[in-house]
């Protein structure tokens, strides 16, 4: 689904991924689409590659193990499930079968963060950044829009080892800025020497940019980094920005323990760089109750206003 509202083009990253995967399968015999009855591929014409679409049913442990076996057998499986099932239910298979063997499996997890909305806390996934980041050999990617998703999915074909992609559910705005996207490299979306905002994912990056605009009107200049590759984090970009501004705000659609904010703190601590850091993310609780994606995010305290407030506090030294 592609929608144009005013000048803003919106697309769902999972649909962009699906369409790109079909073209990649057509030209690369290694690529296998391993499905778990997600429904994402209903009606898709894989053409000559139809043999390489395999629906193993609703069995996520089996899915991850089979993916590892396929990868050892010379293929590059793209495994499809929801983030909650990839990073919680099936995580032992991800750890032992995929990460330990360092096999080229791409786990493509949709419905990341709170994007499952009213489906509720069983389908929300706020732990995946921490869980996947904790696994050796795992690369963790959270694209900020559909175009970047397509590009990073395609780039992953040249990457050794497993990759976890966290995608959303609904159409989101295209960033339309930041230049070429490159796996492992942060994108600088705005330049400023007062505060650094580091964000990953569709909504957090948008909030960061909106907050930067708000701050600019007040004369506060923010550097905004889109760290779509959360692991390995582009430490050079983070340190460079952090050392030329007064402090750092991190923004993520995840529980604050172990996610992007933690990764940034680790980089700063390891480099001995003592700067104020505020982490905007979901507090240490489940987000219950009916709501749409953005409403739930607001309820969880992840908003443009929260990012701007945190940045003001960093700049004013509060």
């Amino acid at each position: 689904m592609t929608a144009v509202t005013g000048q803003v083009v919106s697309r769902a990253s999972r649909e962009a991924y699906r369409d790109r995967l079909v073209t990649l399968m057509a030209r690369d015999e290694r690529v296998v689409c391993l499905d778990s009855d997600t429904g994402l591929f209903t009606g898709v014409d894989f053409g000559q590659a139809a043999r390489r679409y395999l629906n193993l049913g609703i069995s996520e442990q089996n899915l991850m193990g089979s993916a590892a076996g396929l990868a050892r057998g010379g293929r590059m499986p793209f495994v499809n499930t929801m983030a909650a099932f990839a990073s919680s239910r099936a995580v032992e298979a991800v750890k032992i079968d995929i990460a330990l063997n360092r096999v080229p499996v791409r786990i493509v997890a949709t419905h990341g963060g709170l994007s499952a909305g009213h489906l509720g806390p069983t389908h929300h996934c706020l732990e995946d950044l921490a869980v996947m980041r904790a696994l050796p050999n795992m690369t963790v990617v959270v694209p900020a829009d559909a175009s970047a998703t397509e590009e990073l999915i395609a780039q992953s074909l040249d990457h050794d080892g497993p990759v976890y992609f966290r995608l959303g559910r609904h159409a989101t705005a295209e960033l339309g800025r930041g230049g070429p996207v490159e796996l492992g490299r942060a994108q600088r979306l705005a330049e400023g020497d007062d505060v650094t905002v580091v964000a990953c994912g569709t909504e957090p990056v948008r909030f960061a940019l909106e907050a930067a605009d708000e701050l600019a009107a007040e004369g506060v200049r923010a550097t905004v980094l889109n760290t779509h590759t959360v692991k390995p984090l582009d430490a050079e970009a983070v340190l460079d920005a952090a050392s030329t501004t007064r402090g750092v705000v991190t923004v993520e659609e995840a529980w604050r323990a172990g996610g992007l904010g933690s990764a940034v703190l680790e980089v700063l601590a390891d480099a001995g760089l003592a700067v104020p850091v505020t982490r905007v993310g979901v507090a240490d609780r489940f987000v219950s109750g009916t709501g749409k994606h953005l409403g739930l995010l607001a309820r969880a305290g992840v908003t443009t206003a929260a990012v701007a407030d945190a940045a003001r506090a960093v700049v004013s030294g509060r």
Partner: protein
Amino acid sequence: MTDTLTPPDLLTRPTSDQLREHAHHVRELIVHMCSNGEGGHIGGSLSLADILVTLYFDVLRVDPADPADPDRDVLLLSKGHGGIGLYAVLGARGFFPEDDLAGYGTPGSALSAHPTPAVPGVEMPTGSLGHGLPLGVGFALAARLDDAPRRCFVVLGDGELQEGSVWEAALSAGAQGLDGLVAVVDRNRLQITGGTEDVVALEPLADKWRSFGWAVREVDGHDVDALRSALGTTPHEPGRPTVVIADTVKGKGLPFIEGQVRSHYARLGEAQKKRALSALRRGRQAEVRS
């Protein structure tokens, strides 16, 4: 029933008595490993010995000199706690020098209690139960996509069948009709706290597999003739994965622990080792006489 696969070379196939001699030797190696400092999973390794010997010396298309041969058959020891049984067979088959087995359990050795691919011939790390069959599904799918005759054998413990992931994979293999996949169940009927039928009953086990779309054969897991006939002729039904339920005895070969719960793990002292080796020798002599 059709026998669609011909053994690689009939002329080089071992005789049944040679297989029994290999199995005897493998049991000796297991006893030696269990007398190292750390001890080992002796019971479940002894119950496995004839199965693994039959596979590695007669059935599997593998080359110890080229363990990564892309055309090889793959064996996954899903019951990874049978690691010392696998090491003994791999050593005896020439994947690495048998002398390396002396390093088992010592710091710096690749031979840990549960196998990892750091050991030549080991395909995937196992030990956490319930991982082998999903991996096997993947290997079998890869072989099918390649239109290759490669087979994948997954050796499971019976207690392990209490893991749900086994049945996810079993259902999926049946639905996919993966006839390049062979599961072997080491049915020794014991797990750590007692008999499988007392802890969480598995019977009727053959019916369970059958209802998941598998071709089932039940054999005496210590009869190498029965094993080679069942394992060397898969698939037993085209379009279906095969399961061989091998009726075994935990601790087989050591009368003082056979069929006992305490055989699960042991560290043998010098006297126990001597007793064990002489028991194995007597058993082998009786076998040769009969």
